[in-house]
């Protein structure tokens, strides 16, 4: 019984791996590029902040505000702040 169960588990894992590859293969590049773009923006923000360089991304970030607002709201609530701590980010 145990043997059959582990066999089943093995085959399920193999199907899962093959399925994931089949699912990802056609769009691997597009998804990876989107992820890289997100990482690039994050890098720009973090490095600018660390080095004290005036952030060139802030102007562009305005465009992202509608997307970021929900995450920002979750963040400040997790941090124990009921209301948004920033005057220019009024999410609630």
């Amino acid at each position: 019984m145990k043997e059959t169960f582990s066999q089943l588990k093995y085959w399920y894992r193999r199907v899962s791996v093959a399925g994931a590859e089949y699912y990802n293969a056609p769009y691997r590049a597009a998804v990876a590029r989107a992820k890289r773009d997100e990482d690039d923006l994050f890098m720009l923000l973090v490095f600018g902040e660390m080095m004290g360089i005036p952030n060139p991304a802030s102007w562009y970030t305005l465009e992202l505000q509608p997307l970021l607002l929900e995450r920002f709201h979750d963040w400040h609530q997790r941090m124990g702040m009921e209301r948004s701590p920033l005057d220019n980010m009024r999410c609630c």
Partner: protein
Amino acid sequence: MSAILLLILGLSGMALGYFVYSRFIAKVIYKVDENFRTPAHEFEDGVDFVPTNKFVLWGHHFTSVAGAAPIVGPAIAVIWGWLPAFLWVTIGTIFFAGIHDFGAIWASVRNKAKSIGTLTGEVVGTRARSIFSIVIFLVLLMVNAVFGVVIAKLLINNPGSVVPVWGAIAVALVIGQLIYRAKLSLPLVSLIGVVALYVLIYMGPSVPVSLPEQVGGLSDNAAWILILFGYAAVASLLPVWVLLQPRDYINGLQLFVGLIALYAAVLIGNPTIVAPMINQDLPAGTPSMIPLLFVTIACGAISGFHGLVSSGTTSKQLRREPDARFVGYFGATGEGALALAAIIAATAGFASLADWQAVYTSFGQGGVLAFVNGGATILSQGTGLNAEVAGTMLTVMAALFAGTTMDTGLRLQRYIFQEWGEIYNFKWMAKPVPATLLSVGTCLLLAFGAGGADGSGGLLIWPLFGTSNQLLAGLTLLVVTVMLVRRGAPTVFTVVPLIFLLVMTLYALLIQLKGFYTKGDWFLLTLDLVVLVAAILVTLECIASLRRLKRESESADAS
């Protein structure tokens, strides 16, 4: 004539082609090398270049190339009788499509996985490359305009399929979220997706949806076309993981299920083919079989579109060079099998010859609707499935395929506009939204410009799609042939299909040109002329580059 016999003959022929002919091609012509380091290893980056399991790559390649065309083409072409369509699909798959798709992958793999467009520029010349970009734009334009019409007709003729066709989008959106956000295991999500899709198919006939005959002064057909293009524009702008990726995946699974069900139903039910072997009683206005048969059935016999997929993404993921035979040749065989299913459905799924003739009343009639109606009869007789549900299942299968091809086609067309924007420094055109609007606009112009207020211009130009697509295939075969000449390998196996394709394409274009001129259809006449000029230029390029090569090899021998 028993459909089982046709099925066995066709599939055995294709199997022989794969096991015997493709092995010979791999060994003697392309000389694939087990030790050749493929670009997937050489440039491995985890993004574009990833060595992939050959079965997975086959699945990806097959579902990318199998759109609605292997269903539409054969189902129209059986108007000349089942035998010509059957022979062209079987022989075309074995001697034309297999070697073309396999060759496109091989040529690309041997050239750092470059696309066939780039290779045309490098191997043949820059002029050939310019022709290539014009032809590819025309092909995409036609695919998008045609498939809009095909889906609209399917939705109108089978109102029960509206809920599952649009519901499939909702299913895809949900499974996309389940995979990426909820991180659920893929086999489980696949099961949920497929079950949800089939529940929708089962439910569909009990909640039929039809648009009113007039929507804001437009016919229901035109309204559906506008809705479909609106959807395709949004879909092509969304991040791929949100809709396109899960939608392609679920469609792929449905294709396998549908194809297996259809073949099983033929084997169980053994329907009789009622259509004539060679139709002597052709409806008035049907064009001559030669050359139109060879451009009406493109996908399923040989299709230039496959060269784009083969050299675009497949070649970057090939793990071993010998895998090109399985992925390319067997991929083409898979599509031949789909075209064979379409032929059987459109000839054996009718009760009598009179019923069949009632559908095939003029050229271009029948088509995908004959596949759906005939296939549904076969499915319900073979498996005992309710006829209406079987019809909905096949309608959804055809509509989803046309839909995903339209999504991808529109995205590719948008890339071309963006590229032109960058090359010619039109900043506005290089942005996604204006480029998408331009793509949708040109497709609608074609649909309504050639088809009038009904919007079915896409279907009128279907034979032109065949010719442009065959031209693309010709260009790919030319690239492969030039490479073979340089390597001193035998070229007869690629030159014969190349010459045959060019002759048939030129002949078909001339016949159509005369037809459009007689009818006074100036729009199609202009399009035909563009393709004709491209075809002549391709032919001249073929002759020039092969002569140049011959001279080079002669002078090398002399020195």
